[in-house]
């Protein structure tokens, strides 16, 4: 793995550790000990990253937000991978009318801008608990995975080892499951890692405009939403979550690129 890829892994690990251990160390992200006196404090030994306008400890919120943002993204990516793989395999493997129909469905899914669907759904269902948000995100991200998997399926259908399996008399379904499906996994893995970055950003963006993670649950986007009016008086409230976001997305992108280089050397 390249140096940059390793950097990505390191960053993600740091974030994971932060997400898991942080809330324990830091305490309650929602505690407002002294909204009047202890608000908007600069970093100190008491509050490692300071406090926000409601005297909530920023470090604690950042850690709790890390946990939630990462969980949401992970759920989103898994859901998208599962649904997308299913659709993609089916679209690629089933011949004739049904296969074409499935392809049309995938194309349709791709034609709908993801943000539009998300906003419509969220307008209808309102703020939801964050795991469900993850599912909704995933449910809007499957077309891209499906297109990828379909492409891989089509390519692998003609691979020699698949033809060999058929020649040995293996039934189609079995060939699909045992030979083709594992062949699509590297592409899905790469896409999912890169998709992690997208999911993190989408969740942050949605929370930033007030429709994502439901308060009092903390999330980086939510922290930005809260900090919007304080950008001139307390800019660190805005930039600390930004740094976290950038770290997380860069890590996922670096790792994804590195994975692509090692698992899919043919894609330059």
């Amino acid at each position, binding site marked *: 793995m390249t140096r940059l890829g390793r950097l990505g892994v390191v960053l993600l690990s740091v974030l994971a550790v932060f997400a898991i251990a942080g809330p324990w160390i830091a305490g309650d992200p929602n505690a407002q000990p002294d909204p009047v006196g202890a608000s908007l404090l600069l970093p100190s030994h008491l509050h490692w990253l300071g406090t926000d306008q409601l005297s909530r400890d920023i470090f604690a919120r950042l850690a709790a937000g890390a946990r939630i943002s990462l969980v949401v993204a992970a759920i989103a990516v898994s859901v998208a991978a599962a649904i997308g793989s299913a659709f993609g395999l089916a679209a690629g493997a089933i011949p004739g009318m049904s296969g074409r129909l499935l392809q049309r469905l995938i*194309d*349709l899914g791709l*034609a*709908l*801008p*993801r*943000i*539009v*669907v998300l*906003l*419509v*759904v*969220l*307008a*209808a*269902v*309102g703020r939801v608990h964050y795991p469900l948000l993850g599912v909704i995100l995933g449910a809007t991200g499957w077309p891209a995975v499906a297109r990828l998997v379909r492409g891989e399926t089509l390519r692998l259908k003609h691979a020699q080892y698949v033809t060999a399996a058929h020649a040995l008399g293996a039934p189609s379904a079995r060939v699909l499951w045992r030979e083709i499906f594992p062949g699509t996994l590297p592409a899905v893995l790469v896409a999912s890692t890169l998709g992690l970055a997208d999911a993190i*950003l989408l969740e*942050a*963006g949605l929370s*930033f*405009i*007030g*429709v994502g993670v439901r308060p009092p649950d903390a999330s980086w986007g939510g922290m*930005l939403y809260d900090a919007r009016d304080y*950008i*001139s008086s307390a*800019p660190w409230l*805005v930039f600390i979550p*930004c740094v976290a*976001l*950038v770290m997380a*997305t*860069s890590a996922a*992108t670096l790792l994804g690129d590195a994975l692509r280089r090692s698992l899919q050397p043919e894609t330059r």
Partner: protein
Amino acid sequence: MLRRTGDAIATALVASVVLVILLHLLPGDPLAAVLGDHPVAPDVEARMRQHWATLPAIFGGLLRGDLGQSIVQNRPVATILAEHLGPTFLLGALTLLIDFTAGLALGVWSALHPDTMRARFVGAVTIVGYALPSFVIGMLLVWVFALKLHWFPPGGVSDVLLSPDASFASRLVDHLWHLALPLAAMVIATLAVPLRQQRSAALATAAQPWVLAARARGISPGLVAWRHCWRPALTPIVTLLGLWFPMLVAGAVFVEVVFQWPGVGLLLAQATADRDVPLVIGGGLLLIIAVQLGSLLADVLYHVVDPAQRHA
């Protein structure tokens, strides 16, 4: 060509249908929450539900230009959208223009002169553009250029204090002044894609034998770059246009919120937060159509740019 247009229209239609069906499939009553906050007269409510109840009703309405009524604002959705279309179109069109001219030029430039400071700068910009989400870029710009340096206003589309009798020129300048930062944010956020694409396309074309053949004829480097690298590299980029539009749409939503730019994106964000479902759907349909138009535009341009396609 005609077939392609038909395709685009069909896709837009079907996508819209899917969107509405999706709405009906969701559990619960989508309108309940917003009606709770903004109650309306029972007959108005009944008409509203009727409008979205069946497909014929929806498309009949669409053809009449009726997209329903916004619950929060108690005004026709179509009117509200029309008001907000201008700013978004302006922002989007200019971003498109800059991305696909500067982006292409920079991409080719950095491909023809690799290992130079400029190429590295371009590389850095692409990474930054990729890594930073549009709203972070927006907030950074606001902080640095508006709040710290006071070079530009932090938001809005015009100065509220500007008198309505002010000259056209000063109003224009005021608008441009307000446009600068949101535009910058959009460009930085979306430039990376055409730039990277063009850079790899230009790298690929620069390596093509016909470039070497042109140099062998003694043609000046500038002409070689333009005629033999730039133009052939345009072809794959044009297809990118179709994929770039959805990105533009997403970027627009977040940037408009950061800068309080009164466009469709900001409208959509607010409407979603308010759970004003008719307005969100109306805005959503508009964006779906925009994306399809973009894709169609890309196909038309592709036809123009690639002679092989023209005779195919």
